[in-house]
């Protein structure tokens, strides 16, 4: 599988970088955060991103998509990660839209994907219930009622859930928490009675929501995929999300590293630049090596997704665990290397560290993914 970008991909990467640097430098995230923006992202910018095709890179042409690959989408995530762009790509396109793409019927796909591709609808995935990512631990129940289903339960860390117009809710139609069988996906409109969405603000300036479902009544047509076979739809969607999150984390960590390196070359103490001290040099070199390995596994995973390779689940967990660890190391080291200024809000480096740490917890920390990888590998 290709681990080197094609000319077209290099060009796309450069185009994305130029766009992001011009339209959404890090100061933009700060503005959204400090103004307590109602949506938490720039709607006009999102419209432009959709017009450039970013919202539909991986969708088929039939639904207004560009029918390109996850490698391309990964490059967009990487470059956005470099600039900490607040955008609804993950929640809307990859998670919510991804479930419809993977398991939806033609009517659902036509309605949802076309709207997402045009930047006209925001989605999210309501999956997590406890403090950790545990996709099979779903306890939220959906009972058959009035010709449809009635959903009761509560969800947390629903990314961009406060602005989502539709939620893909994962509920249990049979079995017990922990069972792989018995999960069902429902497409639920945000205004449905009994659905209560509470915005939560995260330390990275981004937003999620707690979602309470008290007897939310949906039609049978709201079901995505087969009843009780939601895991079949969910798992490949989560793997693709892991691949692009890893790409974003690679971008964020790379930018934090570049900034720390620049600081090492300019900040003077004891009459010399601090980058001449071996105590810092070796740590910088160590981070560089970890980033090189990270880049390889991110590319390997994205291209495996595009090739439809059988080991995507293992690779996705491998990539996420690696990027969790690399982003943790680079984020923390970068703050330390900036010294006193590094712990101020004024200096941007802290924003990179905080974003990395939120993503670290998103869709599974490293021990979760090491355990999953082990299970997939038969140990």
């Amino acid at each position, binding site marked *: 599988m290709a681990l080197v970008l094609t000319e077209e991909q290099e060009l796309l990467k450069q185009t994305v970088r130029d766009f992001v640097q011009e339209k959404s430098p890090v100061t933009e995230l700060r503005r959204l955060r400090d103004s307590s923006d109602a949506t938490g992202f720039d709607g006009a910018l999102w419209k432009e991103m959709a017009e450039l095709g970013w919202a539909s890179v991986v969708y088929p042409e039939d639904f207004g998509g560009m029918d390109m690959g996850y490698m391309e989408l990964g490059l967009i995530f990487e470059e956005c990660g470099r600039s900490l762009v607040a955008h609804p790509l993950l929640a809307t396109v990859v998670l919510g839209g991804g479930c419809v793409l993977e398991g939806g019927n033609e009517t659902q796909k036509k309605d949802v994907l076309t709207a997402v591709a045009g930047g006209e609808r925001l989605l999210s995935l309501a999956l997590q219930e406890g403090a950790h990512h545990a996709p099979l631990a779903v306890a939220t129940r959906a009972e058959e009622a009035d010709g449809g289903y009635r959903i009761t339960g509560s969800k947390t860390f629903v990314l961009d859930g406060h602005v989502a117009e539709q939620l893909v809710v994962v509920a249990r139609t049979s079995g017990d928490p922990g069972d792989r069988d018995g999960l069902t996906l429902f497409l639920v409109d945000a205004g449905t009675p009994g659905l209560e969405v509470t915005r939560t603000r995260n330390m990275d300036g981004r937003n999620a929501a707690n979602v309470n479902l008290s007897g939310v009544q949906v039609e049978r047509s709201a079901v995505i995929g087969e009843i009780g076979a939601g895991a079949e739809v969910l798992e490949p969607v989560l793997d693709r999300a892991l691949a692009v999150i890893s790409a974003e984390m690679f971008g964020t960590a790379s930018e934090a590293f570049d900034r720390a390196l620049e600081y090492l*070359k300019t900040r003077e103490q004891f009459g*010399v630049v601090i*980058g001449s001290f*071996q105590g810092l040099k070796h740590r*910088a070199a160590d981070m560089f090596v970890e980033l090189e390995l990270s880049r390889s596994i991110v590319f*390997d995973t994205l291209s495996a997704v595009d090739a439809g390779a059988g080991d995507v689940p293992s690779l996705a967990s491998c990539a996420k665990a690696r990027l969790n660890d690399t982003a943790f190391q680079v984020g923390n080291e970068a703050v330390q290397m900036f010294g006193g200024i590094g712990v101020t809000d004024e200096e941007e480096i802290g924003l990179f560290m905080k974003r990395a740490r939120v993503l670290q917890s998103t869709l599974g920390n490293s021990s979760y993914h*090491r355990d999953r*990888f082990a299970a997939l590998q038969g140990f």
Partner: protein
Amino acid sequence: MSDLEAFRQEARSWIEENCPPAMRERVESPDEIEWGGRAAQGRTDDRKVWLDRMGEKGWTCPTWPKEYGGGGLSKAEAKVLQEEMREAHARPALTSFGISMLGPALLEYASEEQKKHFIPQIVKGEIFWCQGYSEPGAGSDLASLQTRAEDKGDHYLVNGQKIWTSYADKADWIFCLVRTNPDVPKHDGISFLLFDMASPGVTVSPIQLISGSSPFCQTFFQDVEVPREQLVGEVNSGWTIAKRLLQHERSMIGGMGLGLGGGLSRGAPEIAKDYCGENDGRIADPVARDRVSQLQMDARCYGATTRRAAEEAKAGIPPGPASSIFKLYGTEMNKRRHELLISIMGTQATGWDGEGFNAEELGETRDWLRSFGNSIEGGTSEVQLNIIAKRVLGLPD
């Protein structure tokens, strides 16, 4: 049929006809590795036949030019050959520092006469080469080496001492860094000499390691006369050759960590199930499971990085000091792997010899002890970090 496919057919049938059945069996011990050389230690008839045939064909060094006895294959053909060798379970006919280190440097820096003389010998495995680099006072600071070579007209007179000379007790010739000018900055007075270990004045004394094995030696030179024509490149410009050769060495050592099994015939997951218990097909101890998983993931990331480097090279992207990354990460990962294995094996990995421990356990204990040297030989991990900081990141001295 494409040319490459035709070559595959040719390679396949040639291997089929020429590789003795005994050379298609798994290598069970280091003694079975063919290092070439005059002494022919442990060389069975089958080993000799396989070495001679492969050497004659030039396929011990598939991509080296035909005019010096190499295989003259393109990189793509060499890859096909490698695949067919693997498919046929054919052992490498020859393992040598001549192939992995000296040869590439000679092809780049030696005179036409030297190439014509030395390269074919390497291809055919006639000479067992060893490397005379480190000295007691010149380890990480290799360029401060003191072994003198005085210009005596038709020859150089060599006096001094080398250390960590791998297999010097078995080698036929040495490629050696010597000081030809002590009055200039240290990097500018070094030359690259080749000479016969049977020369009068050369003595060798093996060093026993913490693992119990003695792959390294101390090597002493007292008034050794080396013919003038055995100096490679320009006099006093040996450091350039030395550095290039180190890159080849680092790639080689870094690559050793990649064969995840190492000396073992089974992987860490199976070993962990044996020693830490098995529960529903999983390693019962969650901490051990987590550590094994971490290691397997590291190996995947490292493997993906070596593949990426190969793809970049193919795409014409300059390699940069990648060998330092591979040397550093490959050896550190190999050390972590052995640390993990002995922690999994518990007290069964504390044995030295005799009863109470099986061969796998005793072997692993020795391999673990041997792995301490991985992050030292060929340039310590700290030196690799220095190189990355300076050459890649541009951090100042």
